[in-house]
């Protein structure tokens, strides 16, 4: 029996592959995949799936599950049906992401210098000055090359009409790029022939592009030394840190491997101290330097911020970028794009209500069971209420939280997220997906053609986070449109 299911129901959602309006019921860029799947037997498919899972385990492509004596690691569930994006769609996404990151960098530069956007009343000053991630210590500090966010991962979703919308920006330590590359490697092993004929754009350039963006931060140095600073082996993203360090051929260091002398950063080696010019850090601001931020941090490097301020070391991303991925500031991004670039946003936001605004707040409190409510600074799918899927008690609890601390909450219209055929218990069913592309800002802004497509494996679920039952798919951006 072929794995294509004649009873597949795309439901009332935008389905990435199936569309009754299209000839054959399948969107043109999925035709060849559908044909291939039509010839694939269930047994054969299962065999390849098992082989891919075993390879992930053997290669240690895992994330860590805590509270286990042996630090159990799990593989990130991987679905073998790829998500395909035709060239025409991708061009628009790419342009929209470049525009957005450009504006966000100008915004950060403004916030930490003249604060024109506050004086011109584009953003209420209280939102910035009272924000958790605003670092007043960095007012009037000029970051290397004027770039604040070098690595960005923005989450995109599609509404019922298939329009791409920005759900959130991740401007601190966005993760997942390693899975984008490993997923591709897995698909190449599972379906070697399909790639040749399909014209899929490669994602393997990410490591080189990332290295270039980091080297860009050490101008004038003959052979700059670049390191990746990890919280360490017990961090859930440790696999990714190692993976990226290996892709770039740079050392991976922990805070205790670095030492600051006379405002210069060095790493401790068996042959003495070696200078460090650029740090790709995967540690939060709060933990970077115990002498400036959290004094109890054992992960950071005492004196690091001083060395950064003295211009002797570059950090990617810069300190204080969290102000721009605050979910409240998110609501202002379309305005900021117009303000700084004089352009209309190419990628719209999800319609958002700000609890800090009296009218919006009233609307949120009265309609909470119909909305998605999010706390401003949480990630990973936590601190969030999906009104239509929640109990009365949960809604009441959030209503109280919003009323008590309006600055910290936003409400959004629930978006049904597009669905993609996904292998569930022996047959294909539609599951909701999002897309996280990776944007790098070096000499110029580039977007890797692809990204991490995350899929909510639980039936009906809209939460794609790996910590809450999410998996992933390979993302194919095509050279052409079919």
């Amino acid at each position, binding site marked *: 029996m072929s794995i294509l299911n004649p009873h597949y129901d795309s439901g009332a959602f935008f389905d990435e592959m199936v569309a009754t309006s299209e000839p054959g019921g399948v969107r043109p860029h999925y035709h060849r995949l559908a044909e291939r799947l039509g010839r694939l037997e269930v047994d054969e498919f299962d065999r390849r799936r098992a082989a891919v899972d075993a390879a992930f*385990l*053997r*290669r*240690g492509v895992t994330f*860590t599950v*805590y509270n286990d*004596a*042996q*630090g159990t690691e799990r593989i990130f569930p991987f679905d073998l049906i790829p998500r395909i994006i035709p060239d025409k769609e991708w061009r628009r996404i790419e342009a929209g992401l470049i525009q957005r990151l450009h504006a966000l960098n100008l915004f950060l530069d403004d916030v930490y210098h003249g604060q024109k956007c506050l004086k011109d009343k584009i953003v209420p000053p209280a939102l910035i000055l009272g924000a958790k991630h605003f670092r007043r210590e960095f007012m009037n500090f000029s970051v290397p090359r004027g770039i604040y966010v070098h690595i960005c*991962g923005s989450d995109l979703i599609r509404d019922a009409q298939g329009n791409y919308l920005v759900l959130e920006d*991740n401007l*601190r*330590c*966005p*993760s997942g790029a390693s899975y984008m590359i490993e997923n591709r490697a897995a698909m190449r092993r599972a379906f070697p022939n399909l790639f040749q004929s399909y014209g899929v754009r490669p994602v393997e350039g990410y490591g080189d592009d990332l290295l270039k963006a980091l080297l860009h931060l050490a101008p004038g140095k003959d*052979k700059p*030394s670049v390191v990746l600073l990890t*919280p*360490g*082996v*017990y*961090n*859930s*993203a*440790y696999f*990714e840190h*190692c993976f990226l*360090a*290996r892709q770039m051929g740079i*050392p*991976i*260091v*922990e805070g*205790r*491997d670095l030492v600051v*002398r*006379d*405002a*210069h950063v*060095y*790493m*401790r*080696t*068996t*042959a*003495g*101290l*070696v*200078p460090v010019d650029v740090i790709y850090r*995967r*540690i*939060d601001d709060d*933990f970077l330097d115990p002498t400036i931020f959290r004094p109890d*941090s*054992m*992960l950071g490097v005492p004196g690091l911020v001083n060395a950064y301020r003295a211009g*002797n070391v570059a950090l990617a991303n810069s300190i204080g970028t969290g102000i721009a991925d605050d979910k409240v500031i998110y609501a202002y991004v379309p305005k900021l794009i117009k303000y700084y670039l004089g352009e209309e946003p190419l990628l719209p936001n999800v319609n958002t209500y700000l609890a800090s605004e009296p009218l919006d707040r009233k609307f949120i409190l009265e309609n909470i069971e119909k909305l998605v409510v999010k706390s401003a600074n949480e*990630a*990973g799918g936590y601190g969030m209420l999906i009104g239509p899927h929640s109990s009365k008690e949960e809604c009441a609890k959030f209503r109280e939280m919003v009323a008590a601390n309006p600055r910290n909450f936003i409400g959004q219209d629930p978006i049904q997220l597009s669905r993609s055929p996904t292998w569930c218990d022996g047959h294909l069913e539609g599951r909701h997906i999002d897309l996280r592309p990776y944007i790098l800002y070096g000499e110029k802004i580039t977007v890797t053609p692809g990204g991490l497509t995350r899929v909510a494996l639980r039936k009906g679920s809209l939460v794609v986070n790996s910590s809450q039952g999410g998996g992933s798919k390979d993302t194919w951006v095509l050279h052409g449109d079919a």
Partner: protein
Amino acid sequence: MAANKSPLPASRPQATTMLSRVAHSLYWMSRYIERAENTARLLEVNLQFIADFQATADAGQNQHWESLILSTGDEELFEQHYETADSRTVTEFLAFDLKNPSSILSCVYAARENARMIRDQISVEMWEAVNELHLFLKTRSTSAVWKDGPNEFFGSIKQASHLFQGLTASTFSRSEGWEFIEFGKFLERADKTTRILDVKYHILLPSATDVGGAIDTAQWQAVLRSASALEAYRRYYVREILAWKAAEFLIFSDSFPRSLHFCVAQVDDYLRRILGETGARPRTEAARVSRRLLADLQSLSITDVLEQGLHEFLEETQAALDTISNEVAETTMFYPAESAIEEQQQQQQQS
């Protein structure tokens, strides 16, 4: 000091210098793999030995297993957790017990954790070999080993260790890291060879009457097999197994890669490279101890050793190896212990 000048310029070009933490992990990764292999061989040979002498009274078997535990130096820990020493409890203790830091599972887990910490430094092949060994061990248990036969189990562990060491030799650059890997491997192997010999000492004590008898010969054969040395012994001496010849071979052979002499010569060589000891007279305590130990192994005879007492000689050797290990760790790999770091590492949000 000029602002943009390194206060302590590294003595090697940057591409070949390595983080102290990485050196530490390479060293322990290598030691733990070697330790797991040796424990597997020790257990396998002794299980075989017991099986060959079914006639031996139960009391004798217990003595045999107790000697084995005694030679590992973990007898107190064993007594805390087990009532009697028999094939099953000893297998559980030496192969699977995570409470025993030297059990095969503990060693492989520790080797893998060290490898994981330096995954960016080792080859994919090395990582996959140690990761697969760990995955394999996690699917096994004492009862399964007894059901499927221990040979397959111990064989797999030895093979995985050889695979790892072979892959290391063929995929790891001959840089400073290589020196730490080899130093760790030979140091561990030297220590284990002394312990394999010591098993015989502990067994011999209660049954000195049987010297030269069938069981005695079988025991010395088992000792040689524990060090993969039986065939090498036969080729070298071309004669029957004699107690003092077997001991001589395992201590003094200058060509067999598991003899104490051979291992210590390697330890001394890598140690001098790591510490930059180029002169005729050693500058560091580690090099002094190592040189003295090597000189003994080059000049003493088996008669000297037996006069001093084999057990005493082995104990002194173990102490010297400990000193070397500790001194090297202190000069090149010292880090303050900060176990609370773990919790903060977990807290770091990766959005």
